[in-house]
């Protein structure tokens, strides 16, 4: 790894995040560098989404600071943040659905001036993004006629069109079949190689293993952080999932299987 690929994108210092009087994490110091893909793990309601939104600047932290490219996140204008950080939300709202193309092009919003319309270049980016997620030919479809998995991939295409250097993804594998889960993880891996940082909330620890780095949240603190293999084989992981999983270490890699009744 070259020095360049270790340039920190996002750094937290003594970050404390709270929601509804509950602490999500306390005094968290972490650094996300370009080329890294972090998987955020933890059981339901532990605050993965809250932490992700805080890192995206959509919530203010209770204490501590977040730096994006060495600048304090809270002092940056929203538009500047949106040029650098892209967020995939857990669910989309479509009270007023438009076409697939209109939705994808909305990713260009932070890059366009007040009176500016999308140009040929923006359209090329949008088409390339649609083909990256396997939605070519869907341009004129209404969004509310898409399946759950297709909408998920559309949201990802919008993010690719936004072209930020840091992706914050809330359960990106939701609604995706096994084939598209694998495609997505490969795509994120390629993006990381091209010099982008990714943080994804995952429910399946195997996805975190594919991502490379992992952070495990547990009742108000970070229980484990580091390489995904170390996190998954560690004692904290076994404690959090309370014996519901079995971890296999094989010559081909590490795999986590659930222990069904």
């Amino acid at each position: 790894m070259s020095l360049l690929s270790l340039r920190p994108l996002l750094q937290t210092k003594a970050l404390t995040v709270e929601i509804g009087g509950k602490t999500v994490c306390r005094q968290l110091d972490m650094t996300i560098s370009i080329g890294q893909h972090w998987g955020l793990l933890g059981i339901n309601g532990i605050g993965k989404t809250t932490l992700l939104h805080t890192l995206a600047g959509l919530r203010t932290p209770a204490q501590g600071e977040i730096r994006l490219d060495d600048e304090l996140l809270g002092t940056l204008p929203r538009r500047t943040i949106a040029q650098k950080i892209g967020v995939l939300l857990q669910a989309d709202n479509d009270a007023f659905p438009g076409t697939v193309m209109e939705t994808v092009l909305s990713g260009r919003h932070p890059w366009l001036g007040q009176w500016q319309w999308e140009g040929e270049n923006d359209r090329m980016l949008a088409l390339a993004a649609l083909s990256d997620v396997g939605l070519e030919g869907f341009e004129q479809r209404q969004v509310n006629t898409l399946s759950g998995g297709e909408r998920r991939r559309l949201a990802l295409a919008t993010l690719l069109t936004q072209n930020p250097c840091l992706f914050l993804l809330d359960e990106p594998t939701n609604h995706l079949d096994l084939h598209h889960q694998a495609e997505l993880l490969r795509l994120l891996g390629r993006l990381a190689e091209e010099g982008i940082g990714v943080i994804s909330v995952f429910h399946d620890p195997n996805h975190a293993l594919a991502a490379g780095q992992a952070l495990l949240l547990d009742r108000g603190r970070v229980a484990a952080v580091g390489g995904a293999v170390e996190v998954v084989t560690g004692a904290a992981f076994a404690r959090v999932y309370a014996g519901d999983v079995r971890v296999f270490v094989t010559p081909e890699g590490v795999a986590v299987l659930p222990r069904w009744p």
Partner: protein
Amino acid sequence: MLILLTPLSLLLALSIGSVPVKLSALINDSDALGRSLILELRLPRALSAFAVGGLLALAGTLMQVLLRNPLADPYILGISGGAAVGALLSMLLGLGVGWTTGNAFVGALLSMLLVFSLAHSRGNWSAMRLLLTGVVVAAGWGAVISFILAISPERGLHGMLFWLMGDLSHAPPPLWGLIITGAGLLFCLPFARDLNVLARGELTAAALGVSVQRLRLMLYVVASLLTATAVTIAGSVGFVGLVIPHLLRLLGLSDHRRLLPAAMLAGGCLLVLADTVARSALAPQQLPVGVITALLGVPVFLYLLHRRGNHL
């Protein structure tokens, strides 16, 4: 197409009325009466109708994005209720037309401030909180309106009912209405792409670089002022603000950069046509224009709702 429809609807409004007058009177010196009828009565009224329709359709489009609710209309947050209380009180006290108009505007602004301060009191004003506050305040105004109607002497009731249903026969000169319509549109157009993103959700919009709180505050103020202006000119004309944005969305306009100007033009045309019907259908008796827009609006809206039901 709407740009063509606008002069057509205005021409139609000028040529139709309770007294048959040919448009040629405008260039024919011998028909001075006909000319003054067109230029001094029908033209200002048609322009007022256009302004009111444009204001309401614009305000309706903005309100629907602000509340992210397709059923929102310009009156949903109680602005017309406040205006009605101001106007009806003036009528009850026997004040003149000028006072009625002025107090309607004051009532609309009071209602706007009241809803905003109540919804905003804890610093966090979600769309749902704003909607609930507005709907409850509107219900309160509704009770006050019923009370005023109940204690009013019978001879005043006719005028009050006309005001409540929307009526252009006492409209002030159209210049200010037209200026505010144009200014409202010009002010909103640079934010039209932000509206596209906001329509997809507040978090989505924030993640795409929109300062959501500031945009929502602006939307609330602009939509309220546009509505207040419309209500002051013509009372509470129904359905234009609700139906026009939906009609255009169903025609495939979901981009607010096109939807906003289209809504203004289409709303203006609809109200010009409705007012032409209102003053000529049962001539010489005049109908309140709100009755015609509602008569047109109800079936159209039910049809849209039905179609939407098939989609979901």
